[in-house]
């Protein structure tokens, strides 16, 4: 039982980090129907910004988060403006391929020596990780921080989407961007904001990921990005609670597979669950069916 609970905590930590990345996928998809493959790389940039903030400028932790959040948000807004906006009315496949292009661009361009460089770097821990034993289970302050930061982010997101003007705009554009535009919503601004907001969460995820798994390189965003995307689809892409739920399921399935079967099956089982859920409910667990408008 202790073993199970310990593994559940391990899974929770992994799931929470996935959740922060999955939010960006689901929000962007919800609003412009684009799978933003560059999102995992924005997350990577967040990790690197945090790395420089700590290593080179020795900033305190809140400022580290601030640097990653602002940096990622600006980057995502620029990407949207340069790469996606010109293609907004183009066939969807064009935007998808552009997204893959942006992703590769970020990975290889940042790997140049003049930027982040191609090497693996040790991420400096801004605080000491302490673990406390209680009832045979090991709790770390790291898990506490990840949990607290993620919950704060989710509450903030909930507030923005349901209690603010721009949130109402997001919901309207997501529902029907032509009509929303006719009603006076500034569609471009709302879309930019959504990209920035999603990237800000990825930035937070990048900092937490760097702290939890202290090694970063420019290709580090690929796997977590893929997993978070899967989580978003599993939970129902376009749905914010769905993304979180999907990420928590992914975290648990990976950990439990490694704990009771073998670590080599962890990705296999995670994707089996995805396939199973999509067969049973093609829109994902919390996704709502959407009829194609003519």
């Amino acid at each position, binding site marked *: 039982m202790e073993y199970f609970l310990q593994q559940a905590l391990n899974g929770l930590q992994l799931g929470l980090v996935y959740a922060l990345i999955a939010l960006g996928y689901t929000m962007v998809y919800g609003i412009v129907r684009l799978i933003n493959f560059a999102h995992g790389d924005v997350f990577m940039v967040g990790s690197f910004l945090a790395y420089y903030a700590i290593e080179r400028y020795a900033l305190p932790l809140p400022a580290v988060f601030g640097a990653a959040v602002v940096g990622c948000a600006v980057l995502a807004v620029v990407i949207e403006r340069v790469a996606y906006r010109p293609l907004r009315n183009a066939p969807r496949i064009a935007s998808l391929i552009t997204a893959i292009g942006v992703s590769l661009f970020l990975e290889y361009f940042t790997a140049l020596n003049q930027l982040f460089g191609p090497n693996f770097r040790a991420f400096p821990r801004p605080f000491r990780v302490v673990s406390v034993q209680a009832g045979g289970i090991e709790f770390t302050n790291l898990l506490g921080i990840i949990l607290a930061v993620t919950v704060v982010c989710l509450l903030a997101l909930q507030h923005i989407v349901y209690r603010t003007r721009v949130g109402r705009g997001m919901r309207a554009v997501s529902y029907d961007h032509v009509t929303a535009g006719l009603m006076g919503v500034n569609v471009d601004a709302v879309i930019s904001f959504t990209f920035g907001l999603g990237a800000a969460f990825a930035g937070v995820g990048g900092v937490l990921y760097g702290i939890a798994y*202290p090694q970063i390189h420019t290709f580090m965003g690929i796997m977590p990005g893929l997993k978070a995307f899967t989580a978003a689809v599993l939970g129902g892409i376009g749905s914010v609670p769905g993304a979180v739920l999907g990420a928590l399921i992914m975290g648990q399935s990976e950990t439990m597979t490694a704990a009771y079967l073998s670590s080599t099956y962890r990705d296999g089982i995670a994707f089996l669950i995805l396939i199973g859920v999509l067969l049973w409910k093609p829109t994902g667990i919390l996704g709502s069916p959407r009829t194609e408008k003519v």
Partner: protein
Amino acid sequence: MKRASAVVACILAGVCLAAAAASASGKEIKIGLITPLSGDVKTFGESVKNSFLLAVEEANAKGGVAGMKIAYVIQDDKNDPTEAANVANLLINRHRVRAIVGAVTSKASIPVSDIAQAMKIPALTPTGTNPKITVADGKRKDYMFRSCFIDPFQGTVMARFSVETLKKKTAAVLYDASNDYSKGTAEVFRESFGKLGGKILAFEAYGKDDVDFSALLTKVKASGAEILYLPDYYSKVGLIARQAREKGVKAQFVGVDGWDSPDLVKIAGDAVEGGYFVNHYSPDDTRPEVQAWVRKYRERHGQLPDALGTLAYDGTRMLFEAIRRAGSDDPGKIRDALASIRDFSGVTGKMALDANGDAVKSAAILRIEGGRQKFVRTVNP
């Protein structure tokens, strides 16, 4: 248009003439070096390159080898098997090298060995320890050599050390299922640890891109193993060791030559403190050859030479020795001369190349103390 093509023809002719002139004088032999200068094991690549250059400079300062100046081309394989195959082809087909030093890691050396074999160009990996580099499916790749011991040896050495010196009876092993080097040593360790009367309580694989080892480490902790064997490169070992201590795993860490990097302690912090690993040499060794080498490397590069760099120095010099014995730049003759080396005396010790082209030589066991590597003892084959 006509004029342009005439200019191109002139340039081409010039290039050909120049090339012909260079080869006609017969005063130069071109060697390729394949080493990871970027990516996850960059520190290995850098020190191999530094040492290779030192060996080349020394040889050229003495007027070259067998009357030929050594020219070289260095290529980065990024510790990626595909990239290693690409650069091996590039070196052989474009740069026309007569011999190759490399690659550095096992997974990059295996594709290089196949290409060298197919193109009949002798290649020597200074540091790749997986048996499959020189022998595949029971067949010897007779153009491939190495100047280091092989994985079965280092796995056995650590198993024996764990049982006989550390007096531990139970062990857990975590390895990278996609890495020949990691998997090979893990299996050898399991087998010899069992033979010596020890028990393996957990034998678990992870993937190349995994960074979260919490599930596996919780398993290791629950198993109560006294030893945790981590046969992988420093970047992965650092991550695992750190998470292990955070998860309350108290086992003694032991490992392989892939640990040998200053970055291990940077990534792992004090988590690897007290860990033992097998290596090819130690800069603390008091033999005069070792001390002279350490001094030379330090003067030039301002740091201690690691084991892989030292092996690269030995390996490159062993290749030069073969060229000297062959007395020609003919790849076939260089190969034959390499195969006949039985008594090469290098910084890392005396070595003989056996029938498989593998070096038979001693190993060193090191311990990490206060973030530094301390020499414990030498183990003979």
